[in-house]
């Protein structure tokens, strides 16, 4: 995060004073403070509660999942080591391949949609007045509402008869009623749309913060050079937001890989597997059918994919920065 903030500051060419305070204090002062703080274990002691929680609820289960992925899991009788058999099973399962493709489609569509919607909302709602801050909060509401509530709301809106909520709206412009989540042709984009509606405002907030960091002088300079509104967005706003977009992209991609709740609540992977994503498949295999070993193997693969993606994006960004 710090890298990106610093990057943002550089790109936007912000005033030197601001950069000075946010980056690092003079080395001499830092060393002095270190001595005053005393023992090396003090920061660790402060970190301990959080680290312990992470350890118990995150790292140990993760290591156990890796262990389980090479075992035939039998909670009571004791696990049997089966080598890579679970990986073979899941990789040769056509349902897993389909789910991977669906996950990628959904992740990509939602990420892109959220960025576009978030960017448009941010442009519309940028500014200082009190009314705007109220509207911004209102627009942000979907992000804080629990997913279960949203899913139920959209299920009602997606009611597939011609007097359903959304169908009666699209009926006004003469479109035929859609089946939405009840047809394999439309289920995927229906879930995507709901995800964008929910995720867009989150991106909006981050982009708004990014917009605030763009030097106003650049806009003025562009106006003086004769740039119109569109050209200003294209040549000033978008380049200024590049670091913001990259962090949003990483976050959204990771979130996209792990998408579960909305799919589980709306379609549970149906109809005809049209919305089956990796997480719903793993849930079915591991927790409903109690094939915990196979499920764990899938989860480890998902973890590796996320890891590779994150590292790749980080590397790409670093290389770009060095160049």
């Amino acid at each position, binding site marked *: 995060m710090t890298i990106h903030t610093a990057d943002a500051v550089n790109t936007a060419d912000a005033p030197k004073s601001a950069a000075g305070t946010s980056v690092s204090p003079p080395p001499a002062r830092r060393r002095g403070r270190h001595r005053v703080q005393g023992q*090396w274990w003090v920061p660790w002691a402060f970190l301990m509660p959080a680290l312990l929680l992470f350890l118990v609820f995150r790292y140990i289960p993760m290591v156990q999942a890796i*262990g389980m992925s090479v075992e035939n899991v039998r909670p009571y009788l004791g696990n049997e080591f089966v080598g890579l058999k679970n990986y073979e099973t899941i990789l040769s399962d056509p349902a897993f391949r389909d789910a991977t493709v669906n996950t990628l489609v959904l992740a990509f569509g939602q990420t892109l949609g959220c960025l576009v919607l978030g960017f448009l909302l941010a442009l519309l709602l940028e500014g200082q007045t009190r009314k705007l801050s109220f509207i911004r909060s209102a627009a942000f509401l979907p992000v804080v509402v629990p997913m279960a509530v949203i899913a139920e709301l959209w299920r009602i809106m997606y009611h597939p008869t011609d007097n359903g909520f959304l169908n009666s709206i699209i009926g006004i412009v003469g479109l035929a009623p859609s089946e939405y989540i009840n047809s394999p042709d439309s289920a995927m984009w229906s879930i995507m749309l709901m995800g964008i509606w929910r995720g867009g405002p989150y991106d909006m907030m981050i982009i708004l913060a990014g917009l605030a960091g763009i030097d106003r002088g650049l806009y003025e300079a562009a106006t003086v050079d004769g740039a119109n509104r569109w050209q200003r967005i294209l040549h000033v706003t978008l380049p200024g937001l590049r670091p913001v977009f990259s962090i949003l992209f990483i976050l959204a991609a990771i979130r996209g890989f792990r998408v579960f709740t909305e799919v589980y609540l709306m379609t549970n992977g149906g109809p005809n597997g049209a919305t089956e994503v990796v997480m719903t498949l793993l849930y079915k295999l591991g927790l409903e*059918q109690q094939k915990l070993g196979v499920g764990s193997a899938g989860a480890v693969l998902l973890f590796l994919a996320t890891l590779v993606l994150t590292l790749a994006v980080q590397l790409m960004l670093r290389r770009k920065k060095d160049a």
Partner: protein
Amino acid sequence: MHTKMKAAAVLGVVTLALAGCSSAAAPEGDSSGVKQDEEAVLEVWTRTTPGSPSEAATIRQVEAFMEATGYKAEVTAIFDDFEIKLAQRAGQKDLPDIVLNDVSQLGTMQSQGILREVDLKDIKNSKNMTAQALEAGKAIDGKTYGIPYSAQANALMIRSDWLANLGLEAPTDWDEMLAVAEAFTKNDPDGNGQADTYGLAVPGSTKRGYASWYFSNFLWAAGGDFITGSGDEWLPSMTTDEAIEATTWFRDLQCTAGVIQPGAPSMDTPPTNEAFESGVAGMYVTGPYMMPRFDKVLGADKYTVVPAPEGPKDASVLAEGGTVYLMAGSENEKGQTAFADWYVGEESQTYGMEGTDAFAIQLPVNEKVDISEVRDDPRWETFATAYKESGHYAPTIPSWTPVRQMSADTINALLADCSLDVEEELTKLDGKLTAELLTQGILKQ
């Protein structure tokens, strides 16, 4: 300094993780090796919603057990992720003593080794149990691992006011059922001048395999089955003529006749129940446990219960029920046995059927108990007859859940996408079922 710290931290994580692993892989627990204590409180888990009327009914029943036998017991109601929570306790080698869960879980639980075999000689009341219920308590090895204590079968609930408005009779076979469904859909049975009614309520979602659950009524009535065989020799059978006929007929309700409530492919039971009680759909094949709710929301005068319409073969319907499972590793095995024995006795079976809101016992498994003596509601007799004459349990194999899940996926797909070819999809399903039976080691070679 920093590297050292990191190394120490990593070492800590690894040690703890290994400790976690090794405890998970502890040696096999031996049930007979556990020190016995007849005073120990029996921990009873039941798969119902905490705080619900059915939890209250179970507590009432277990309290009666304590009074009658002197053993101590405590009820815990769990609904969400019941099996997962049970697996967690299995991992800790500290299972509850008694589990009250669906009979279809028997195979899964038995193959996990968490059940104790029951010697029917110890269960004195078992001599009065119906043959059907006794059979349902057996695993593929022919040994008894559970004592079914309550039974239920599906019947057809139908809006009597709609029938009266249109001058129709309740259907007795599939052709009549289709005709009634079409009339309910097209002839405005609620008389509000709008085409907003449908024939049949169907939970067509893949969640927990609901689509397959519901469809099994029709599949069995046509003489088909998901898998056929016995012992450890099974074959998939979704491409038999009977199965194809049943699937095609059921699917045509949606794709040709259009008599199923809208949105069925994404609905599990809660929204489907609402579709029936709010007057969207006029027929619903379901169990007696829905009556208290529909009586309250819809009104008992608005619907009747009739036997499920006869299919091409017979009127087979899904039979299910609660089973007492005696869990392995208990420190009070005598108490466990007494619990199971008491639960299927005459006294407790009668006691458990009393009440109005929810019942610990739906239909008795004890032949000496006559339901009409306890309940003067004739609708219960319809269910009792359906169970006795047409009740069809799902086969007991090591794990029924994947079979139900896979068939639910196919039924759901066929309902959602009318362009799919029935035979082709069923052939695909047979392929998946073959692989699953092979995984479970029960495929007939």
